[in-house]
């Protein structure tokens, strides 16, 4: 956890062979395997605005083009704009002024008016001539670019094209596939919809009116261009009036050239996502629904389950072909004692074997997960479109395991180091009794509650040159008690750990 914000010197190999710091890894409690960002499928749970924390349903979010209706970003520096109130003196309406106040002329009243202002760069909505508003939110004018209608026409056209394409493909598939069963069998009955029956019988879908895209006038290229103004080569350019790349990309519809055409931009929504193991389809991460909550309903981060390895220091100056040692601190994050075994990394052939084994396991999984299972899944989840696109398709997208690219360039001096890592017990910190010293192997330097410091001696490779980074790698076998099942079962799992021990120094 010490390396949460910076590059970590300790990294773990995921089951797929990619190397990540422990803070970026997850642990599937059902497969008992490490998972990285590529080994989980990412699903959007909810959309929300990070400024006003309003939760926006996904259909509405799509309709609003994934933008918040109330919050704006500064077009100048992309900071959040805040509404500011000013008191403005406005003349009273002309209807009632002649009746009462003929004697003292035009009466004036103060009125609260709002404008948008950026606290970062002091940009205000007055800079581009947006009039002040009576209400703080909701009434800000939409800046529509000049070719909005053309854009809408194109959008409509291409949506129709996509629809037509889809229908034709469906029609083709229906004609091509032989009719397997005229009548649905009893086992198939779960999750059968009317449209599926129709499809099975061979009738066309009821709601398919042949979508025909309306014709649009295609754009025509022209070579008639306006000449550059004469002073473009002679007048010095004032860079303050020219918008920068970031500002133009922030306003993609018209990409203004000058800063006086920068308009407040609606704030883009953020998402909460849940992560699902690609092998077993169990959730690995599931956030709480409400945007204000930063907690999780399911949080299987690797550092809650896998012993955390920390590099304390490197003991000796490192030379090629000489021995060195590093001091590591291991922490047991679980509520069960772990016995740990540190040994050499698997050889290449062993690694290939592991990959084959893993692939085989995936294949068995895939075969058992027949289409029937997928069908039943479909009926469980309410929206069929979601399951068909996310679940059934992504199971086949399991990240192909590969050989770990990171290579260790040291040999461990001991073939095995065995020790026990005590369970985590938050109350031991308050215990007063001194721990009874017990027989410890000599490589253990220090031990307190669930933490252990060990010395790991190794010999660096002869081939290393001055300035090369010494990579210590080892396989850490640890016992893990699985509490998902009714009776806790103990497993021996292993993780491949890589540590940057420092550079080779010259003589």
């Amino acid at each position, binding site marked *: 956890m010490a390396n949460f914000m910076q590059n970590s010197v300790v990294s773990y190999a995921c089951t797929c062979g990619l190397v990540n710091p422990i803070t970026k890894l997850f642990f599937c409690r059902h497969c008992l395997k490490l998972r990285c960002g590529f080994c989980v499928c990412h699903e959007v749970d909810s959309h929300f605005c990070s400024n006003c924390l309003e939760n926006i349903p996904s259909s509405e979010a799509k309709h609003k083009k994934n933008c918040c209706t109330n919050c704006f970003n500064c077009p*100048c*520096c992309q900071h959040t704009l805040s509404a500011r109130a000013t008191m403005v003196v406005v003349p009273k309406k002309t209807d009632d002024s002649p009746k009462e106040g003929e004697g003292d002329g035009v009466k004036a009243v103060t009125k609260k008016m709002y404008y948008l202002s950026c606290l*970062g*760069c*002091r*940009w*205000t909505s*007055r*800079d581009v001539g947006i009039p002040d508003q009576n209400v703080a939110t909701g009434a800000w004018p939409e800046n529509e670019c000049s070719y909005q209608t053309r854009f809408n026409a194109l959008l409509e056209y291409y949506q129709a094209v996509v629809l037509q394409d889809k229908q034709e493909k469906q029609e083709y598939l229906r004609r091509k596939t032989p009719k397997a069963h005229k009548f649905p069998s009893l086992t198939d009955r779960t999750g059968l919809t009317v449209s599926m029956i129709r499809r099975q019988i061979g009738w066309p879908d009821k709601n398919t009116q042949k979508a025909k895209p309306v014709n649009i006038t295609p754009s025509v290229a022209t070579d008639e261009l306006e000449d550059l103004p004469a002073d473009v080569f002679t007048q010095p350019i004032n860079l*303050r*009036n020219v918008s*920068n790349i970031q500002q133009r990309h922030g306003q993609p519809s018209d990409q203004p050239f000058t*800063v006086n055409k920068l308009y407040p931009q609606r704030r883009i929504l953020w998402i909460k996502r849940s992560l699902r193991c690609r092998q077993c389809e169990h959730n690995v991460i599931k956030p709480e629904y409400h945007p204000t909550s930063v907690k999780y309903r399911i949080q299987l981060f690797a550092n809650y389950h896998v012993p955390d390895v920390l590099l304390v220091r490197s003991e000796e100056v490192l030379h090629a072909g000489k021995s060195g040692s590093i001091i590591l601190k291991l922490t047991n994050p679980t509520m069960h004692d772990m016995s740990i075994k540190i040994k050499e990394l698997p050889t290449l052939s062993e690694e290939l074997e592991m990959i084959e084994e893993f692939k085989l396991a995936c294949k068995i999984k895939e075969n058992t997960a027949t289409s029937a299972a997928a069908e039943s899944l479909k009926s469980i989840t309410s929206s069929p479109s979601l399951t068909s696109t996310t679940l059934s398709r992504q199971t086949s997208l399991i990240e192909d395991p590969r050989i770990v690219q990171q290579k260790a360039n040291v040999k461990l001096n001991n073939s095995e180091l065995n020790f026990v890592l005590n369970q985590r017990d938050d109350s031991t910190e308050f215990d007063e009794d001194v721990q009874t010293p017990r027989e410890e192997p000599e490589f253990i330097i220090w031990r307190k509650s669930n933490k252990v410091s060990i010395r790991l001696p190794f010999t660096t490779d002869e081939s290393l040159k001055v300035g090369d980074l010494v990579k210590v790698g080892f396989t850490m076998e640890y016992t893990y008690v699985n509490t998902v099942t009714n009776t806790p079962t103990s497993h021996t799992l292993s993780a491949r750990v890589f540590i940057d021990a420092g550079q080779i120094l010259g003589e």
Partner: protein
Amino acid sequence: MSHAEHNEIKIMAKAIVCEDCSLIGDITISPGCVIHPSATIIAEAGPIVLGENCIVEEYSTIAFRLPTDNKIDPAVEVRTLNIGANNVFEVGSRVEACHIGEKNVFESKCYVGPCVFVSSGCIIGAGVRLVSEQKLPENTVIYGRNCLQREAIDKHGSQTLQIDFLRKVLPNYHHLRKPNYDPKKMRIAT
């Protein structure tokens, strides 16, 4: 070094100067100014005249430094650094500019080097560092990590509300330095 050796602090009436700020050199503080505790003003190369209604916040430093080679050319007349009215020096700012006009805001933790000429209505954003020799035109806003510049079209709000508030609150919690200088009386005396 002649000016830094003796402190000559002139505080005019209606200025709020907290006792535990450090003022070094020949400094004149005009009416309406608010100097917070732990602020530092160093008049090393010549006198500093702080204009009316300036706010100097905590841990901010205004310095009129000697040139880096630490030599004063005796032939050149000693220059006075006249700081205009309505400037705000926010918490932790460090301003060594050679000229400061009116209505500037130096935001928190910014640094303005000695070769910078600050005109009027400028805003130096939080954390911005200006080191090289430059002249900031009026209404310049410098913001962000990359010190981007823009020109403020709309004038930024005045600090009168803040000044009034500070003038009310600060005397309740801090010992103040007493005003010791009245330009009218001085005129009569001479």
